[in-house]
């Protein structure tokens, strides 16, 4: 360019741009922008759910007798599945027992995934290279993002406590419960940042953080079920929440331990950032592989190659969990037969026929539907992420129609979901057989396989999203399972019209193996899933490829 402005001052004498006062503050603001929407949504969900359950309990007006309460407190199965029950004679105590574990898992996983998204995700995409070319140092950036995610988790916990307090559950217990939930979320966030320092890929970092978090849930189950190992509860956020026992013992020292756990993990994350290169994790793995994978020569081979590791991880988790479910089958059913009031309450919460081992397994297989649905939606979300990262451009420059690749992925995911269901079914059977609960292998498998239509609905919804709303594959994909589950529970709780209840896929599932398989319901769901998938594939073939 030769266009020059008149030289009204000597070259080089121009004043340099004034830098903003604090680069770290700018990084904090950017991280805040990335978490604010998710934080607001989750805070609403947590606050709303605790308030609703507390109000529901108060509406029941003490239908739960003192004898049942004592029995609940003594039963190892209940303690293992739902956490140590305490203070069930209050609305707050009941709410904590009923929603505490679920919300803690939800908040913890959300915080871990948010942390890896803001750290490893941004770093992997190269966005941190730009940020770090300025005055920011890596340590400052890691610390700031960690602080932001910790605060977001704390806010969500506070919202849950606020919901309880507003529902009239008592301030002291509400504060303690909110703090426990916040602490669990903060552990998840810190685990996410630790994972991001160790692994160079966001998927691995997220996997590590979520696996460790869910592992601490299993540790709590063991600590509650095996008296000799009860000290293990002090090492997990879920166990510490039980020790705090909001609305019952209302102890605060375990909160200190929870705070220490968060501080230790946070410090570990900050320490681990040192000595690693930007864009790489500390555990880089081997950079060379001289024997190429034989799978990577065809589309189905590629699909299998891509699903192997996630499938192994999910299967390990499902086997561990459902083995425990099987092992607890007899203690659980014995207890329920002796406690009519509790069985009724459980029925109201969607756990019908818990009295028989078959009913118990059928009820817990509902949770398997949620897991399978999340897995299926996650696989399609991975395809959408590949597309957004430009990794599919070379593949699609070959004679590979987009709909064909998506269909191959969908078929592989369907098989993987079936493998997961079989693994969970066999694990349930193995556990139940160990304690002679009287559950046949066929029954266990039938129960697990009966929820497959819900997972297929999730797969169909995710493919529809891939075709028409590719930015929202995961949330839309899990909607049939998670949304359907919540819809059923709320419909039963508040007596919503049956037409609304029928929208939930779970309304069309029979309680296999306690009831015979409901073929028309399954066929209907598979048909809807196929229609959604066809719609999605048509949309995917037509729309522009994103990069």
């Amino acid at each position, binding site marked *: *360019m*030769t266009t020059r402005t008149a030289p009204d001052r000597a070259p080089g004498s121009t004043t340099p741009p004034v830098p903003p006062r604090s680069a770290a503050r700018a990084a904090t603001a950017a991280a805040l922008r990335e978490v604010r929407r998710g934080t607001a949504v989750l805070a609403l969900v947590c606050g709303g759910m605790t308030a609703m359950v507390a109000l529901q309990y108060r509406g029941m007006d003490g239908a739960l007798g003192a004898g049942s309460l004592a029995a609940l407190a003594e039963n190892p199965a209940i303690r293992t599945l739902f956490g140590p029950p305490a203070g069930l004679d209050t609305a707050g105590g009941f709410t904590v027992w009923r929603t505490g574990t679920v919300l803690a898992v939800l908040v913890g996983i959300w915080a871990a995934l948010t942390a890896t998204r803001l750290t490893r995700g941004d770093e992997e995409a190269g966005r941190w290279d730009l940020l770090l070319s300025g005055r920011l140092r890596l340590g400052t950036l890691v610390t700031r993002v960690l602080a932001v995610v910790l605060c977001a988790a704390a806010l969500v916990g506070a919202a849950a406590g606020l919901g309880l307090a507003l529902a009239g559950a008592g301030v002291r217990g509400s504060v303690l419960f909110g703090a426990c939930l916040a602490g669990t979320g903060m552990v998840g966030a810190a685990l996410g940042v630790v994972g991001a320092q160790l692994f*160079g*890929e966001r998927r691995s970092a997220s996997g590590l953080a979520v696996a460790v978090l869910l592992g601490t849930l299993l540790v709590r189950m063991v600590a509650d079920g095996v008296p000799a190992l009860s000290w293990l509860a002090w090492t997990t956020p879920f166990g510490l929440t039980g020790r705090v026992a909001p609305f019952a013992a209302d102890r605060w020292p375990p909160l200190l331990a929870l705070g220490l756990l968060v501080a230790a993990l946070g410090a570990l994350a900050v320490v681990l950032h040192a000595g690693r290169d930007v864009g790489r994790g500390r555990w880089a793995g*081997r*950079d*060379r*592989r*001289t024997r*190429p*994978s034989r799978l*990577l*020569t*065809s*589309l189905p*081979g*590629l699909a299998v190659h891509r699903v192997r590791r996630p499938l192994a991880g999910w299967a390990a988790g499902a086997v561990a969990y459902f083995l425990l479910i099987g092992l607890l089958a007899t203690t659980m059913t014995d207890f329920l037969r002796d406690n009519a009031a509790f069985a009724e309450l459980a029925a109201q919460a969607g756990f019908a026929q818990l009295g028989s081992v078959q009913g118990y397994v059928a009820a817990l297989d509902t949770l398997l539907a949620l897991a399978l649905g999340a897995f299926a939606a996650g696989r399609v979300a991975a395809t959408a992420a*590949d597309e957004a*990262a*430009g*990794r599919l*451009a*070379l*593949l*699609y*420059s*070959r*004679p*590979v*129609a*987009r709909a*064909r690749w998506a269909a191959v992925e969908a078929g592989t995911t369907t098989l993987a979901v079936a493998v997961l269901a079989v693994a969970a079914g066999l694990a349930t059977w193995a556990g139940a057989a160990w304690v002679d609960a009287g559950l046949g292998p066929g029954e266990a498998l039938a129960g697990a396989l009966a929820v497959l239509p819900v997972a297929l609905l999730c797969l169909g919804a995710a493919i529809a999203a891939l075709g028409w709303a590719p930015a929202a594959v995961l949330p839309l994909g899990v909607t049939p399972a998670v949304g359907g589950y919540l819809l059923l529970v709320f419909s039963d709780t508040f007596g919503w019209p049956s037409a609304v209840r029928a929208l939930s896929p779970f309304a069309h599932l029979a309680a296999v193996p306690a009831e015979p398989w409901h073929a028309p319901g399954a066929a209907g769901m598979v048909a809807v899933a196929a229609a959604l998938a066809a719609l999605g594939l048509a949309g995917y073939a*037509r*729309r*522009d*490829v994103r*990069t």
Partner: protein
Amino acid sequence: MAAPAPSAPALRLDGLGKRFGTTDAVVDLSLTVPPGEVFGFLGPNGAGKSTTIRMLLGLLRPTAGAARVFDVPAADVERAHRWLAYVPADVALWPSMTGRECLDLLAGVGPGTDGRYRDELVERFALDPDRRARTYSTGNRQKVALVAAFSTRAPLLVLDEPTSGLDPLMEREFRACIAEAAARGQTVFLSSHQLAEVEAVCSRVGILRSGRLVEVAGLADLRRLHRAEVVVELGTAAPDLQHLADLPAVSDLRWSGPLRLELSLSGPPGAVLRALGDADVAHLEVREPTLEEIFLDYYGQVPA
């Protein structure tokens, strides 16, 4: 690989257009590239080159017009892509796969690959194929895509700024590969910023500005159509030559000394030669413009 229809153009774009929201990225683009031609596709950043290429690959849906590859509609990728290979500007690979695995996969899903040529290309481009893609630099990822594309021996190579990450040695190898492809009768559609590269390998170029094709011509024609730089050195001073500036074909007359003048000439040189006939010309040099000068002419800019 079966051969495509012999008489069909390798590439035909008919009134191709793409609109993103309210932005017209590509407008009414018509272009035919015959088989065997090495075609250069030029334009500044954001002119719509990549958008055009992504439309002819079927990755984007045109909002107007149509693209055909050897007479097969571009949207029918299962057929059209049997005749082409593509190198994107920004190559993204699955990070945990090695270069060899990427090449195996692309060969496995492609229309056929010459394995021996592929091994030769891996050597020539000095690619270490056993490293995982996450360890590759931009240039190395580009090499993977280049090896995969050239080794298919596809009748049409669509290359979108394929050398932006390559060092000069590798770029020389790339030009050699293009020359070999052209010698075999392959068609090349090369989008590039590297004008020297286009000048070295292309026989015809199209120039894109703001989504519109402003010129399509052979390189020789393009030079002829444009100004030539004329340098005249004189034995004795000739003040009369001042009036050269009045000739309509002459622009930008510069005297770099009493005995040396330079001018830009567009059109036939007859009038200038007649005017110089009476002067004591010691040395006359007529230089054709470089592609860079032509390119900059189109965008009304001169290098700073």
